[in-house]
């Protein structure tokens, strides 16, 4: 039995549910918006995790779940809590339920995509860059500093540099333009991440267990995910990676503890490979819709332990 949680209409979750249906794999979906009608309890006895879940009027043993797919949104932003005052019974229950759910799947003896402990490397880009370097994959030259002079020197060294957040918050990549220099002094308040811009093709590689799905993204926007904001368009195409590169992506993802990941690569015109980032909870539907790659099917099969 597979357990899925989140908002069922969210595209990536919806695709996996659809595939589980097609594969006739028994599954249960927890719609976060119906949190008030769900109950959960678990116990740890001599290291064994057991418990039960009451969902939409039915009861399930937790130890029967062999796969878990989590696409939970921050419960504090659920519409159902919008008008709830702090510490109201409904708000407290929602917290208790999500806390219990998270605690359970962190220790559940199941295939979990993905546990919080495993998605952490993406919280800090320069930290993750160090892990990528440790696995022998090149990264763009990166500088984190609060010293404007340092940035100006770094910019001189490289043809073009970009800046982005260090954490995963407000993470839109922007090119550092001349017009930005007048506000460069503001970085004195908070170290900022600058990076050499690598010319080349963006490749998103989804790894699911040992399976690899690569998509090339052609655009002239600095950050293809937000090409529409920059008035640009992007074109996505399914591609085959050289086997050695595909294996390196799988190894990197697994070294970060991720059985499902979105590895962002840049391949230069002279075939140099750079890794920009590894996304631990990829919203893959965007790529699947454009390329028809069977990513959701691979996720469903992984959760079910098939193949």
């Amino acid at each position, binding site marked *: 039995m597979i357990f899925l949680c989140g908002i069922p209409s969210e595209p990536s979750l919806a695709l996996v549910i659809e595939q589980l249906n097609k594969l006739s794999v028994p599954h249960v979906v927890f719609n976060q918006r119906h949190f008030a009608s*769900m*109950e*959960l*309890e*678990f*116990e*740890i*006895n*001599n*290291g064994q*995790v057991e418990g039960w879940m009451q969902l939409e009027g039915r009861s399930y043993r937790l130890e029967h779940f062999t796969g878990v797919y989590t696409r939970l949104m921050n419960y504090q932003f659920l519409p159902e809590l919008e008008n709830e005052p702090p*510490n109201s*019974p409904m708000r*407290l*229950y929602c*917290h*208790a*339920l999500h*806390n*219990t*759910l998270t*605690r*359970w799947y*962190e*220790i559940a003896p199941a295939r979990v995509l993905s546990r*919080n*402990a495993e998605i*952490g*490397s993406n*919280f*800090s*880009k*320069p*930290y993750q*860059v*160090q892990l990528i*370097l440790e696995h022998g994959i*090149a*990264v*763009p*030259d*990166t*500088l*984190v*500093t*609060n*010293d404007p002079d*340092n940035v100006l020197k770094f910019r001189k060294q490289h043809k073009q540099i970009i800046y982005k*957040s*260090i*954490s995963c*918050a*407000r993470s839109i990549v922007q090119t550092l333009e001349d017009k930005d220099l007048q506000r460069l002094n503001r970085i004195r*308040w*908070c*170290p*900022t991440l600058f990076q*050499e811009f690598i010319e080349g093709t963006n490749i998103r590689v989804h790894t699911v267990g040992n399976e690899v799905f690569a998509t090339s993204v052609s655009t002239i926007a600095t950050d293809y995910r937000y090409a529409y904001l920059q008035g640009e368009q992007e074109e996505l195409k399914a591609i085959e990676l050289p086997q050695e590169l595909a294996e390196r992506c799988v190894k990197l993802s697994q070294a970060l503890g991720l059985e499902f990941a979105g590895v962002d690569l840049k391949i230069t015109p002279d075939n140099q490979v750079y890794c920009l980032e590894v996304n631990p909870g990829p919203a893959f539907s965007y790529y699947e819709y454009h390329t028809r790659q069977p990513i959701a099917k691979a996720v469903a099969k992984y959760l079910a332990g098939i193949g």
Partner: protein
Amino acid sequence: MWLVLCASNDISALWAYQGLKNQGLEPLELVTTETLAYGVRWEHRLGADGVSIDITLTDGRRITDKDVHGVLNRLLFAPSESLLLIHPSDREYVIQELNTFFLSWLYALPQPILNRPTPQGLSGQWRHVSEWLCLASKAGLPTPNYRQSSRDLTSEMSVATRVVPVGTTVNTIIVVDGCVVGASAPPHIQEGCQRLAKLSKTALLGIEFATGPEDSWTFAGATTNPDLRLGGKALLDVLIRVLKSEP
């Protein structure tokens, strides 16, 4: 140089700093969260030439990765004192940026570092008590039963760190690089503690036990930031040995 990184009110770390200094670990620099808060210059580079850090503190001291031989790291959070001057709409963002930056530059410090930062904690991986229980059981330590329910309404801010009732007296064992110091425990408990430190990949780990009749020891909790004073001189001896060791 060697570094002790801690908050200025971390009495336990200040005790260790003084103890290490008295035992002749030189040059030893105490760098507090508060020192890191104001006006320092940060430079952290990553790329084909490797990873480096270069920090200039307000008092003129400079920390570079090349000069550091070892670190006792007790930082829990990036400094946030100066952030009150930042517009509220940006404050949360800046706090997140600083914490994730601290994770990276601390990770870039040369080893040995006790403890190395992780995304779940700047001085070692924070774990919920339920995760510690599973690991402790796997390590062969006697553990109490644990139950958690969605019906247990607790404040969003409350986090359980022990599985024994508040007020229960606990004994603390500290494992440093595989060596056991602190409370005197039966050999099988000491061995279990060594296994737990290894399983949790934590170089410096405090493990608490409730003791009962007939010398029974039951796991009560674990922390990456134990009260170092409980380890006494034995802890300082191990710390010096580890900090002086080659990575």
